[in-house]
Structures are given as C-alpha cells and as structure tokens.
C-alpha cells in the first residue's frame, strides 16, 4: 500500500508501539484494510489496531475513549 499510496508516518512511539499515519482521504479504506489484513511481517506474527481515525490531526491529541478513571 505504501508504494501505491503515499503514506506518512508522522510519529512512532516505541514505548506504546503506536504510530500516527497520514494518508489522503481516498486512501483511508485501502490503508485501513491493509493494516487489518497484515498478519505477519518478516515471519513474525503481528496485528494492528486502529485506535483513532480522523481527518483532523488535532482531534488525535485527545481521545476520550482512553480516559481511564
């Protein structure tokens, strides 16, 4: 997918193993599907979970679903 659609890796945090990716809106479905279906990389099993998706980068800085009290 990265070769067919330009995808930016905006951030990557090794501690939480989370990243922010940027893709044009027409490519969202392709990218999301590709992440869902990616089951292994270099012979190691892995899974990607999308925590938040938004057209606004600013919206990603606050996720009320992560509020743990």
């Amino acid at each position: 997918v990265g070769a067919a659609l330009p995808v930016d890796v905006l951030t990557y945090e090794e501690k939480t193993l989370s990243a922010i990716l940027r893709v044009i809106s027409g490519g969202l479905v392709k990218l999301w599907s590709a992440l869902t279906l990616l089951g292994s990389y270099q012979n190691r099993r892995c899974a990607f979970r999308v925590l938040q998706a938004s057209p606004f980068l600013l919206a990603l800085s606050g996720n009320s679903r992560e509020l743990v009290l």
Partner: protein
Amino acid sequence: VSFLIPECGILPEVLKSTIADVGEYYLVRNLSIHELVSHEFIDAFVKKGSCYALTYNTKIDQDNTAALLPNGKLILSVDKDTYEELGLQGRPSQYSGKKVMRYIITIDLTDSGFHPDSKKHNRVLWALKEKKPLEFDFLLAWYNTGAEGSTLKSYFSKNQIRALKPKITFSTLRDLQCPVLQSNELQGKPEESCSTEELFEWLGAVLNQVSLDNKSSSFLSTYCCPQPSTIVEKAFLCTITGFIIPEKIIQLLEQLCCYFGDPKLASWLTLTVHGFADSPVSWRESEHGFHKGGENLYNFVIFRNLDYWLQMAVGTNDDCPP
C-alpha cells in the same frame, strides 16, 4: 483542554491559579438514571446553577448513553430494544440509516409541566424506575451559582461517588517552528502568513509531537511546518484532562486574553477544547454520532490585539456547528 503559548517559558501566576481552580468532577458508579429525574435532585442541583452529567465508558454507537445538559435537558440515546422497553417518547436518531437502531429521548427537567405530581413526571419515573431500570457510571459536575445547600458529594454519598481532579500536564517546547499568522488574513498571504487550515494542522502536529522538519524526499514522512514560519526559543504547552465545564473554560479564556495585557513577544496563542467522543450531543443540542471518529472540538487562536480565530471541527455524524 490544551493551550499553547509561544515565547513563554514560565506561566504567569494568574494563569497558574486559574488552572489550579479548574475544579473537581465526580464519578458515580452504578447510578440509576431515575435518580436524576427525582425532584430532590432537580431542585438541589439542576435548578440552582449548571449541572452536567455524562455516562462514563459507554460508546455512543454501541451502548445506551445519557447526558444531562446545563439547561436541564436529560438526553438519552438508546438502542432499539431499550427504547421499546422504556416506552417513552423519543425520535429516531438522525444517523441511523434505513433501519432505525437508535433513538433519542429528550426530557426537559425544568419544564413547568414536569412538576412532582404531573402525569409526565410520573410516567418518566415509572419507565426509568420500574419498567426498564437503567444504571450507568456517570461523570458529574456542578457549577454552583452561590446557592446554599448540599453538594454532589453529600447527595450521592450512598452511591460510590469519587471526587476527581483533572489531570494537568505542563511542558516547555524548545526551538519550535511556529507559523507566522496575521489575524485578518484567514487564507494566508504567500510569503507573509499562513492560512487557518495550515495552522490547524500545525497545531495538531505540535500536540501530537510530530516532527516538523521533514524534507519532501524523506522516506518516513513528508509533513513540514507551513511557511512562512519562525523559530521560537520556547513555547509553553499545558493540557488539562477530565470532565471540565464550560464556565471554567471561559475563565481560562479570559485569563489567556489578559496574557496580552503586558507586552509579550508572542503574537498569538491557542486554546483547544475537545468534546467527549461518546457524548450524545455536540454544539447546542444537535445529535452527535461516532462513525469513524467522534471528534467534536474547537480551537481559539487569540492574537495580541485580541482578534481571534475560532475553528470548530466535527465528525461525520454531526450537524454543522453554529
């Protein structure tokens, strides 16, 4: 709620005290919703000041959700089965599609027809207490307009009520690339200032710690700071997380405007407020849905001359903000 002040290393005392005064909110576990409809509650809290409540840990697109607005309206967003079992009048959700799976019930607690012996009140109480009792964990907050009486903590002392303070984090960002802005140039001017959209995206990048100086040939990311930009030596970023009421945000906004009362290097600062993704309403009382991301947020850019930009963003399942 976050605010960013460029060219600021230390927060002024008055801002520090405003933040410290953001106030507590409460988490009540397993609260039956009929308690919010009881007249003791309405008289003690809803009618005296602004009372806010939102169900905690419920997803607006999956679970039943409830919210109490400061104008006294109780909004219930329920799935089809619950709606049919409750038997209260509501309307189908706007974001339901052909087959209606979600309904919204609005109960005006301050309506004159809702007094203790009215048919309306009895029916609502019966539905929520006996027909289909609903229990949720609630986030509660109350802005008391100076009236005497009980507090939320004492009223719900028999439930497991916990007082919580919003989490506050400060950080100072060094050598930050900031876009140059002109308050009257919303679209930006080539070589002179950046547009509102560029600022909005830049702010998102800063708050998410995205690196701002990628080259266009970089393999990982092509995002870079909008031009023209300047490098500021330091910028102050503060984030407050919790159930924060509008009255406190207004106080914070006023203090941020006062920041420019003394001469400052910064020419603008920003204040960003995020709404809860799972709230049943956003912007006045328009229905809010989740779709792929329940964003509802607004951002103020306040300039030295006290001009401001207000940017409001909503998700797919939302009405346009006013």
